[in-house]
């Protein structure tokens, strides 16, 4: 399957600060990709680079085989729902659909109308008067009805109440099945990603910490707990992601392809949230072990 997003050494700098560093990705098509990371990690920067809102400072990125925002054909292939679902406050819902119809040659008017009807949005109502959840649904409709191959969403549910959040994700996943979309979704909430995503990218401090299929990641990462031990004394092939010690006990989170034979360890499965938190707690520079990153992901249950 051809890749939907390919990045090579992608980087973006603002003045002195690198918002994204050395990002190399190869995301296959027809996946729902979860992009996770704390605030300021570079998620929005990466998504903006993928949609062409920003130009890279270093490296390259190709989306669906083309350069982002290169021309109308490329723009038609990618749908984008930006953070806080921007809409024109003075335009009505129907006006927004007209906007979509006029600016997108591939616009599916019947789909848009049907979706708006099913959501119960009043076409004559101004977007400024809609609730947050309704605006998010409107923005999603605009993204879907242009019939893209890839839909990119930047924290679409961060500001929504739990019911609106659930309804949005239900609508998004249904559209994914119906239109065979590839989706890239960035979020703070690991629980929602856990259900919806089958590909995970963890971005911390402008760098990609881990990227891969969720199933494979969960199969190759384990939690080992046992008597206090030096984590550097593990067999080769077992990479320690995070380690914590008490005076008697050591708990490690490791990545390995091989089975674990050491009977002194109690091996347990990780949840996706545990895995993400483990990677978010990893220091940026191995030479600086004292640096403690406090994870800022929300745990939403």
């Amino acid at each position, binding site marked *: 399957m051809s890749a939907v997003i390919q990045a090579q050494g992608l980087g973006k700098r603002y003045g002195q600060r690198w918002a994204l560093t050395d990002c190399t990705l190869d995301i296959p098509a027809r996946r729902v990709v979860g992009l996770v990371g704390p605030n300021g990690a570079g998620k929005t920067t990466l998504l903006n680079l993928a949609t062409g809102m920003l130009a890279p400072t270093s490296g390259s990125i190709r989306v669906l085989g083309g350069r982002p925002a290169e021309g109308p054909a490329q723009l038609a292939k990618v749908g984008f729902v930006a953070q806080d679902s921007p809409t024109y406050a003075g335009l009505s819902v129907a006006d927004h659909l007209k906007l979509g119809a006029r600016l997108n040659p591939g616009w599916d008017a019947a789909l848009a109308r049907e979706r708006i009807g099913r959501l119960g949005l009043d076409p004559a109502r101004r977007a400024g008067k809609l609730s947050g959840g309704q605006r998010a649904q409107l923005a999603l409709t605009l993204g879907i009805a242009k019939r893209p191959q890839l839909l990119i969403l930047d924290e679409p549910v961060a500001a929504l109440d739990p019911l609106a959040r659930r309804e949005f994700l239900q609508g998004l*996943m249904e559209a994914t099945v119906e239109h065979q979309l590839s989706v890239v979704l960035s979020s703070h909430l690991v629980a929602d990603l856990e*259900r919806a995503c089958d590909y995970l990218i963890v971005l911390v401090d402008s760098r990609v910490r881990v990227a891969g299929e969720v199933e494979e990641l969960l199969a190759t990462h384990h939690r080992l707990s046992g008597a206090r031990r030096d984590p550097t004394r593990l067999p080769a092939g077992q990479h320690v992601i995070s380690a914590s010690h008490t005076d008697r006990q050591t708990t490690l989170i490791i990545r390995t392809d091989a089975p674990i034979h050491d009977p002194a360890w109690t091996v347990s*499965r990780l949840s996706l949230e545990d895995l993400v938190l483990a990677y978010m707690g990893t220091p940026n520079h191995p030479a600086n072990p004292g640096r403690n990153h406090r994870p800022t992901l929300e745990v939403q249950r």
Partner: protein
Amino acid sequence: MIEFHLDTRSGLSPYQQLVRQVRQALRLGLLCEGDQLPTVKEVVAQLAINPNTVLKAYRELEHEGLVAARPGVGTFVTATLADDSLAAHGPLRQELRRWLARARRAGLDEESIEALFMTTFRTASEEDIA
């Protein structure tokens, strides 16, 4: 038609939960031969989960011979579980009672028994899968 739900706190992955819920429904007679399972789109729209999860669950059920997919139409139940398991329930229950009695005689309290059972059960399930 069966309606799925997901327990995020359960130790099982979503697709395993779906498989279980179908089996449970078959056992209890909520699903009979010929009934149609919800389409992938319906399940996804209700639970907001990844479509591949549903596909994987349905494939496993098909692998176990419980359902069959008819392209373009849907996935239909082809067998029930009621008979098979019921027959085995009796002897298994007796064996379990004896084991519990032994555990109590050895001095384990309720929580230790449960912990011992759950860890062994989980490890065994993983070994089976792996």
